[in-house]
């Protein structure tokens, strides 16, 4: 188990290991490194937008490259590897199996992510993380855009291999005496998101091939001059990436289900409703992809279908929130760092959800489409909810990984700076969007209100930056010098911690 980190081992033993905790450790370290790198790019973007005109970035092209790499990094090199890391650590423990079903495949999936990441970071594409044609097929400079395409292709394949491994481990390797309905909701969350990955990702994989052959000039799938249609790419892209939003969100919700009952010292209020909400959300996720395209000339009927499909996610999300509130109600809640981050995430979840309802309502979409409102909305979800719960869960796993306890005081500094910063930056983005500021721009109209709102957003980003510095210090310092944790109950909540010494397979 990870406690092995406390015992000195040659680095190559971890790098070339196929054991699930070693692969998990590699995934987690990779994801945290890229979280910080992506965050540094975000701070650069916010510094550039501090004032109209040039602030620190000399030209629009460089700005485009920075936000492309920022977006791609945060989605594919922070969130997805983190989910894989947590899944690798805990799924075998939670289903009582010795390892993942295919340990070698597991290590291969991780090592595929490394060249994928390298291609994205060395290419430095300017296509934005969506790479819409015609720009991406006709104008985007190579080899940057080509490297981005290949990087994402490799990362996609890595995700598919990881998903297959999780599904087989959960469904086939689970201990025979452990019924599925008695497993942790985190197991359900990883299972559902892995199934969604298998259903959603092949479409984007196909779209990337089409994009590449279009760039080579051997096809014209997205070129109207050759009988193609650029909008077709958007359909293929969002068919993958709207479900992908739930692939990011559902594991975070599963982690919240893992933490809230433990820190409230109460069982989950309704296990069944959690499972149902996961399953229904996974289906609804595929019925709402075109809500990203309401301004692209869809018919009224099509738009209405996708609007209703999107709104159908609201009751399911509400089921989770009410389940959490009801679990906490009457409990004896310990507000250690994991719980603080989860509660912060729930608070911001509602804000981002309300913004999403506005985006998908037909007449309102035309007000908010392609403005900073949308940037505020999805950042509130991915940073405010998903990343918050991830960071909380990392604190929860800290003793398992290092055998040591983190500093609660420094974790507090991390939480409050990050929470206030997140609320400030993304609320300001919502408002500046309503003032009509378009997204993905390097410069903006020197209107006093827009300038002030951008400056508020940038100050919020700097607060997050301070919080993240505390986080990095904590991770490095306490991994090495933290107090040894009581591994039976490191948080003093009277709950049995993960079985970190378990070695034997059940067969």
């Amino acid at each position, binding site marked *: 188990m990870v406690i092995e980190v406390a015992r000195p081992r040659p680095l190559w033993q971890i790098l070339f290991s196929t054991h699930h905790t070693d692969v998990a450790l590699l995934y987690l370290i990779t994801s945290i490194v890229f979280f910080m790198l992506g965050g540094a790019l975000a701070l650069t973007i916010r510094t550039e937008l501090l004032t109209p005109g040039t602030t620190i970035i000399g030209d629009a092209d460089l700005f485009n490259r920075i936000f492309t790499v920022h977006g791609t990094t945060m989605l594919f090199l922070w969130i997805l590897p983190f989910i894989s890391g947590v899944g690798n650590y805990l799924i075998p423990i939670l289903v009582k199996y010795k390892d993942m079903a295919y340990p070698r495949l597991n290590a291969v999936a991780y090592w595929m992510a490394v060249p994928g990441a390298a291609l994205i970071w060395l290419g430095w594409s300017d296509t934005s993380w969506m790479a819409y044609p015609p720009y991406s097929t006709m104008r985007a400079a190579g080899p940057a855009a080509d490297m981005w395409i290949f990087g994402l292709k490799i990362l996609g394949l890595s995700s598919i291999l990881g998903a297959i491994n999780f599904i087989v481990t959960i469904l086939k390797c689970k201990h025979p005496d452990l019924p599925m309905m008695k497993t942790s909701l985190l197991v359900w969350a990883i299972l559902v998101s892995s199934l969604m990955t298998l259903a959603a990702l092949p479409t984007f994989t196909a779209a990337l091939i089409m994009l590449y052959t279009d760039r080579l000039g051997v096809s014209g799938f997205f070129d109207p001059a050759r009988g193609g249609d650029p909008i077709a790419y958007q359909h293929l892209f969002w068919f993958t990436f709207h479900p992908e939003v739930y692939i990011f969100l559902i594991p975070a919700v599963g982690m919240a289900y893992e933490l809230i009952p433990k820190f409230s010292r109460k069982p989950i209020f309704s296990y069944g409703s959690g499972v149902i909400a996961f399953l229904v959300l996974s289906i609804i996720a595929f019925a709402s992809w075109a809500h990203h395209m309401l301004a692209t000339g869809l018919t009224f009927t099509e738009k209405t279908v996708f609007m209703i499909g999107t709104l159908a996610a609201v009751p399911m999300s509400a089921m989770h929130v009410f389940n959490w509130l009801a679990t906490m*109600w009457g409990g004896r*809640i310990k507000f250690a760092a994991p719980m603080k981050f989860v509660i912060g995430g729930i608070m911001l979840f509602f804000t981002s959800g*309300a913004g999403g309802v506005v985006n998908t309502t037909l*007449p309102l979409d035309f007000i908010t489409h392609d403005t900073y409102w949308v940037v505020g909305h999805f950042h509130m979800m991915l940073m405010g909810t998903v990343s918050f719960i991830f960071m909380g869960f990392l604190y929860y796993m800290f003793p398992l990984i290092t055998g040591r306890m983190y500093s609660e005081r420094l974790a507090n500094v991390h939480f409050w700076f990050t929470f206030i910063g997140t609320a400030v930056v993304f609320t300001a983005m919502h408002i500046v969007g309503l003032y009509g500021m378009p997204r993905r721009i390097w410069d903006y109209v020197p209107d006093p209100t827009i300038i002030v709102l951008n400056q508020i957003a940038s100050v919020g980003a700097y607060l997050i930056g301070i919080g993240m510095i505390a986080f990095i210090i904590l991770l490095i310092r306490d991994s090495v010098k933290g107090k040894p944790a009581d591994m039976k109950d490191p948080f003093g909540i009277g709950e049995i911690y993960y079985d970190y010494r378990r070695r034997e397979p059940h067969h």
Partner: protein
Amino acid sequence: MRNNSILVVSVAALTILSTVGIVYAQEEVVNRSALAWGLFYKMMTAAFIVGAIVQGTLVYIIFKFKEKKVKARAEISSSR
């Protein structure tokens, strides 16, 4: 026969009246922007009300059921 005549006359009258109504109707200006913003404010009002209830409940739970508070409450009840 008589019923049919009444039906035909009625339908004709309705058609003519509605056509005349449309032709001589006052021009109605629909300000779509105002409608959309009106809807926006209505939805945001609803969102803020629901949000206040949910977030308020969450804040109430945080203060009511936090570890120290529950311990203190238990001590009070046991001393009684």
